[in-house]
């Protein structure tokens, strides 16, 4: 029984100790509104290895949980940039950015004041 407990403890602590399977990251992603939120979250979750993605509209922070063995933060940021949203490291290409709906054109400081209907 004691050995079993030890084995179980080891087995269960491996993924926790390794810290790579469920790596939590929080970073800023530019965006404006609920439409941006959906686009950012979908871009992130569709990266293989990303398990969970949630973007907070007021503080523009994206929280993700990812498997570091399958992807890295750059992959996620690239995917988000590809969807048209800037992060610290990657700026969205003009054609992806320009294809966003007018209210989502966050680089224009005035856009946030627009009507964020869809």
């Amino acid at each position, binding site marked *: 029984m004691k050995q079993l407990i030890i084995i179980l403890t080891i087995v269960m602590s491996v993924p926790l100790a390794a810290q790579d399977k*469920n790596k*939590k990251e929080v970073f800023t992603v530019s965006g404006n*509104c*609920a*439409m941006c*939120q*959906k686009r950012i*979250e*979908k871009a992130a*979750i*569709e990266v*293989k*290895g*990303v*398990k*969970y*993605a949630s973007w907070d*509209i*007021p503080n523009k922070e994206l929280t993700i*949980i990812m498997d570091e063995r399958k992807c890295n933060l750059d992959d996620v940021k690239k995917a988000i940039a590809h969807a048209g949203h800037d992060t610290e490291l990657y700026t969205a290409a003009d054609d992806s950015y320009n294809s966003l709906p007018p209210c989502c054109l966050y680089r224009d400081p005035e856009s*946030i*004041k*627009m*009507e*964020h*209907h*869809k």
Partner: protein
Amino acid sequence: MKQHQPTIIVLGRFLFFLFLVVGSKNVNAQLKIKGTVYANNNNNTLFPISGAKIHWLNDNISTITDSDGDFNIPYSKASKKIVISYTDFRNDTILANRPNLGKIILFPEIALEAVVVEERVNPLQRSLFEVQNVVTVDNREMLKAACCNLSESFETNPAVDVNISDAVTGAKQIQMLGLNSPYLLFTQENMPSIRGASQIYGLSFIPGSWIESIQITKGAGSVLNGYESISGQINSELVKPFTDKNLFLNVYANNYARFELNSRYNTEVTDKLATGLYIHGNLRTAKVDENGDNFLDTPLARQINFMNRWQYTDPENGWVGFFNIQYLKDEKQTGELDFVPKEDKFTTNAWGSEVNTSRLDLSSKIGYVFPDLPYQSFGVQMAYTDHDQNSYYGFNTYDIQQRSIYTNAIFNSIIGSTQHKYKTGISFTYDAFNELVNQQIYDRKDNSVGAFFEYTYNNLDKLSLVAGLRIDNHNRLHTFITPRLHIRYALWDKASIRASAGRGKRNANIFAENQQLFASSRQINIENNNGNTYGLSPETAWNYGISFTQKLYLWNRTMVLSADFYQTRFTDQVVVDWENPREISFYNLNGNSFANSFQFDFTYEIIQNLSVRATYKNYNVKTHYNNGELEKPLQPEHRFFANLNFETVKQPTGKQWRFDATLHWQGAQRLPNTSSNPLPYQLKAFSPSYSVINAQITRVFSNKFELYLGGENINNYTQNNPIVASNDPFGEYFDSTITYAPILSGIYYIGMRFKI
């Protein structure tokens, strides 16, 4: 998150809201929220204010009201909450959960009274996003009926049909998709509740005022709750100590001398632990015989029902838990008017019956959400029930005792990402039945152990599906698998189509489920085929369904149209054959048996605060009996339902009027064959069609006190001779089981609710 309510409740409460959110996100280009801002001066009179600022919380979109106090603002999903501000008046923040917020009343800065803004979500919710065909009924809907217990809470709801099982006990039975309640799975907070011994009377053991909401799922349910459900699942969520009112008191009385008392008391022991004490009592003392057949039209009854709940929530560490203890004692006496149990029991002085039940339920739930992994959790449910019924009907004795243990452990997580979720776990059920049917003893022990896996896919857009599989080993049903599948696809703007398929398997508890047979002179005939339960083989059926829901905004009000079709096809069934008036036969199906159900629903708010619901249902339920294929008896082919509801605008003090009226129309029902009876005891082949109208008025005097007054069957339609051979109850033709219409006419009631 302070309240760890089951997801389904949260869904139920916010479906409309979700609908707005996702609907607008996906497709709607110009969803706007409108409303009118009024000021409340100190004389409690209202006037519209122009120039009040309207903006979204944490968002920059804003507008101001025009000269009539009206505003129109584009919907912001990001914010969800609207802030209304005006100089010298207190700001108001409202959850924007519908396109027209109606009157919004601002109070002067100095006013001490709380701001009253009504948050209105339709009390009957049909979701566009739920994968299964679920209708969620919240407690406001249940207030529309006198709603004394769970069986009566479906009277304003078209998804479920309420029938009366027999003319003696008056027990109400419910049906779904044209099948009786044994084919439904009843759960209380997702644990199987009304099953086996409590099948007939169990619905009257859950007081309406304890119920927070009901979720009605049509068709194959989830594999999480077992393999027994065939036509659907009805889950009732009870009020919870952390979220319920501190104190609730309800008294009710009707013109047939039925009295009810409901009280609830909740208190928080610590910030993580709360407890609630719920007591229900009902009493009926008057002997009623309006139809002059010398039999009570409704039983004399007494019930005391007690529950103590404990709720634990620790959001920081991810633990939640519930512990419940419920005890019930229920006594009914019925039969001939001058029947006195002590003197006349088991004599031919007078025909009488007593049904006495006591029941103890213990249940607990423990859940854990991994703090670092918001998508991963596990839960354990445990329940113990001791149900004891002692009864006699004339010279027939029927006692049943059932002791059950139920445990279920569920683990929730994801495969790769939150687009692919799964639930898996194991369950164990043990039932010990001791039955005494006249002189015959039927004892049996059932146990089953099973494992299940349910996968949910959601592409965050149009498609979602739930696929479940379970494998069980049962000492009587042996080893078998139960597959269930549900798919939802968003066809276009605010429309979704759903399909489901699944199989269910169960043992028929023939006596408990057809207890009304004892209130007749019918002989019991079981055609033994060497099956494992009463000599009969288990029942197996496939259920397939398709449904379509379209929501529309017409003149800024929501209209919901939905249609569904379901088919249940039995591969084996324990047929209950009433076709010989001298006997009741139970035998395994030899041929076809199916139930087709079509339903069309329409819901619309015609003018502000006046909403209408209408439903048409068509059933085709046929079974191959020993003497050929016949329509199921006492099952109308056509049913129509309409409900009108009007509410006045809630005043700042909480004052409000609510009016509600419901019409049920039932087409002709085939009656069991009585052609071999002597002429006076013969019934027609079909019952007449008829309507029943119920209505209720509620006057809310304040947020604490309301009074209600209503009538059931106010058009006074009753069945003429509900009991065959009521003049000769000990003769061979006596039969109280053929009930197709109400027995009581014009039930008028009054009641009050007090809550703080």
